[in-house]
């Protein structure tokens, strides 16, 4: 479709009014759909349709942001949601546009492929009568026989991959068929690209998991924090690998203008490719994932998990875990929640703020001044009452639903501190800090087809834009004085110049070179 109008097989815009009846209508619709003008319109609709996805939060990328947007825009939000503004790229109207575009593409590519096959089999068009009419035109007189000139031109052109036809006095040559081949390749490759994307969407799986240092993950569905799978993907047949996070290291710029900017993240994983397989140690970094079979494990984030021990009044341990807190800023001020549903006289919990390098200020409260855990501090607020865990409503592990809870006192803690809780709830100890790493685990069987389709599209695109389709003719006739008049002309079939240079080049390679420099006769 990127070629010039000369090569287009599209029907003219003046489409006859359709006859009545479904066949006529279908035919009219098909002609409209496959016309370049409608393709152009669909391209613009596609561009415009993609915009809202960058303006509104999308469920696929940031489900949390969508929830908070809906929360903040109670009137507008549901309407936007009805219009699929939070799932733009899987919206029916978005699919309608690109599917119509691809139908239009097929309708364009099919007839053009047929025409191109014919063109590939055809011979160059016969030499026109008057070559001097062409803009790119050269002529000269020589003593060589016309036959020798024709034979020489034929060889010179063949050596340069021209398709050549000769008669006794003329040479007709054509070159650059790859332009249309590339054009068709590009458009067909786009179809395959869509197929690859569909394969990934149907058969792929992707999920994420947070693993605290010392913790493990086995690749089974229940172990994921979030998991998405294509409609036809098998979730029972996930590759049975597992890994343990031995150590996570982060380093940051210290001092200077970029103080606190991250410099390296490394996660040491002890990986077992299958249960019972011998473990191997692998370091996963941001741009170097772990690969097991067709599944890849990517390090995408990290944070802190304060180690907390909660004891009852008698001093028995109720809970002792590392609780991941969600980082909220570049200095890793992190928010989290500790929930104690059982073991105490009533349910209770804590809202917490973790500060890796804590600075306590009477006015500002606690702030973090550096992302590394140089001097960790933990701010906890106690809440008692119903945690709401039994309502069946899914809860975030990072926040406390305090709608049926009563606020208690606040406490700022350092590592090693123990806080004796009021009302006989027992005590809480801040034992230390572990780091956690978050991983994306993805399997996309469509990505190789997509890659090869993209490469083919790129190759086709380059051919269709850089190869020039052009024709060249030569005529050698005996003039009145018994000498041979040689005329050469060229015609570019696609927008691009440089044909004059090619003519000069051909003349330079002819065996019968003019004795004088040939006169450059320009038309007009």
């Amino acid at each position, binding site marked *: 479709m990127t070629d010039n109008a000369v090569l287009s097989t599209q029907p003219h815009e003046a489409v006859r009014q359709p006859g009545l009846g479904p066949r006529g209508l279908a035919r009219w619709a098909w002609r409209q759909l496959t016309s370049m003008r409608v393709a152009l319109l669909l*391209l613009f609709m596609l561009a415009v349709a*993609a915009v809202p996805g960058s303006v509104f939060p999308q469920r696929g990328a940031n489900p949390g942001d969508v929830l908070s947007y809906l929360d903040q825009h109670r009137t507008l939000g549901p309407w936007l949601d009805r219009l699929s503004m939070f799932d733009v790229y899987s919206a029916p109207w978005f699919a309608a546009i690109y599917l119509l575009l691809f139908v239009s593409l097929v309708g364009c590519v099919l007839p053009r492929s047929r025409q191109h096959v014919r063109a590939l089999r055809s011979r160059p068009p016969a030499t026109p009568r008057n070559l001097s009419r062409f803009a790119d035109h050269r002529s000269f007189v020589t003593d060589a026989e016309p036959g020798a000139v024709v034979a020489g031109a034929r060889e010179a052109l063949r050596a340069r991959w021209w398709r050549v036809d000769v008669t006794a006095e003329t040479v007709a040559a054509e070159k650059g068929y790859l332009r249309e081949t590339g054009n068709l390749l590009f458009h067909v490759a786009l179809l395959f690209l869509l197929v690859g994307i569909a394969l990934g969407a149907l058969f792929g799986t992707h999920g994420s998991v947070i693993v605290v240092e010392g913790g493990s993950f086995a690749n089974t569905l229940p172990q994921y924090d979030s998991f998405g799978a294509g409609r036809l993907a098998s979730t029972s047949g996930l590759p049975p690998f597992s890994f343990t996070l031995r150590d996570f290291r982060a380093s940051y710029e210290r001092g200077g203008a970029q103080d606190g*900017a991250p410099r390296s*993240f490394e996660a040491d994983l002890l990986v077992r490719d299958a249960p019972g397989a011998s473990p191997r140690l692998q370091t996963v970094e941001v741009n170097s994932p772990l690969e097991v079979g067709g599944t890849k494990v990517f390090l995408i984030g990290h944070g802190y998990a304060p180690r907390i021990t909660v004891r009852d009044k008698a001093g028995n341990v109720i809970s002792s875990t590392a609780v991941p807190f969600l980082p909220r800023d570049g200095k890793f001020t992190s928010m989290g929640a500790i929930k104690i549903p059982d073991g105490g006289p009533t349910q209770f919990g804590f809202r917490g703020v973790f500060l890796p390098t804590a600075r306590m200020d009477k006015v500002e409260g606690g702030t973090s001044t550096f992302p590394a855990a140089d001097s960790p501090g933990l701010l906890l607020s106690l809440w008692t009452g119903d945690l709401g865990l039994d309502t069946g409503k899914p809860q975030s592990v990072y926040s406390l639903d305090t709608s049926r809870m009563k606020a208690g006192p606040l406490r700022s803690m350092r590592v090693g501190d123990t806080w004796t809780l009021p009302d006989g709830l027992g005590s809480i100890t801040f034992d230390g800090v572990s780091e956690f790493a978050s991983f994306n685990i993805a399997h996309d069987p469509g990505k190789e087809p997509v890659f090869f389709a993209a490469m083919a599209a790129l190759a086709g*695109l380059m051919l269709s834009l850089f190869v020039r389709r052009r024709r060249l003719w030569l005529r050698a006739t005996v003039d009145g004085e018994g000498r041979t008049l040689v005329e050469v002309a060229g015609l570019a079939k696609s*927008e691009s110049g440089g044909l004059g240079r090619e003519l000069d080049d051909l003349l330079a390679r002819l065996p019968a070179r003019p004795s004088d420099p040939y006169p450059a006769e320009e038309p007009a």
Partner: protein
Amino acid sequence: MSQQTFAQLSNGLVYGAMGVLTIAMFAYAAELAFGTRSRVGRGVAALAARESKVLVAAGGAVAAGAANGPLTAVPVARHLDGAEAVRQAAPERQRRADQFGGVAFSLTRLGLLLMVLSMVGRGLAARRAPWGNMYEFSVASAMVVLAVFVAVTRRRPELRYLGTFVIVPVLLTLGAAITFLYVPAGPLVPALKSYWLVIHVAAAIVCGGVFSLGGVVTVMYLLQDRWERRGVTNRLSRRLPPSDQLDQSAYRLFAFVFPLWTFAIVAGAIWAENAWGRYWNWDPKETWAFITWVVFAGYLHARATAGWSGRKAAAIALLGLSCFVFNYFGVNIWFTGLHSYGGLPNK
């Protein structure tokens, strides 16, 4: 030399390039201003006489009918004749104009050299490819604009008259870079530590430069086309190549850069697959890259559609360029996403 010295040297070179380019801009403007200002009447009369003659010849050529062959020879002849007429009308001023033009072009090349050196200095200061944040990306894109302009002008000297209109956006970009976008040279965040940074971002930078230059040529085409249709001639219109040549030049730039832009997107997708686990995330940056791609695909199709080539196609190209620019500034400033590491001071 220490890394600190390299960083300072690099900044100094950017200021130096800005100074040199400012002088170049005035020299280009002087080239346009001279040569036609005095004895205008004679020049225009000579021009008009020649034009009518050429038009007759053009009519003849059309009558002769070279099928669907390119008839570019005709406007070229008119253009050359126009320049020639001006030259005859005011030889002394023309000579001075040419001198200004020559000086401007030399200064442009000097400015380009200083910017290349500045980037080398920045690379040595940071010990990495010097395009890891918005400041570096802007300087590199401005450098590409100049480099492509110099390269194109060496092959097609008549495009030198675009100089002023190329230098102005380059200077604005450099100015914005050094004032609003500046960040000290330093290592990269882990997300950017990949050889794909070199490939993907370098391709995007070259695209940025060529898109911008194509945009400048397109604007000039639209102006020249308007003047031609209204029969207006002025100082600039006489100097610029005829509209169809400008259109052709803009097309060549866009046709060259479209596959490169495709490559930049594909390279980005490969990197994304390797870093985030998905080759396409509909992140705002990706979305706008896709929109830019679709609009330029529309441009290429429009040029092949009856009734859509020429001005309409040019408008689409400018729309595509605005999408690109929005993707660079707008998305980095207003949207947050996976690509939020422009290094803007307020982030």
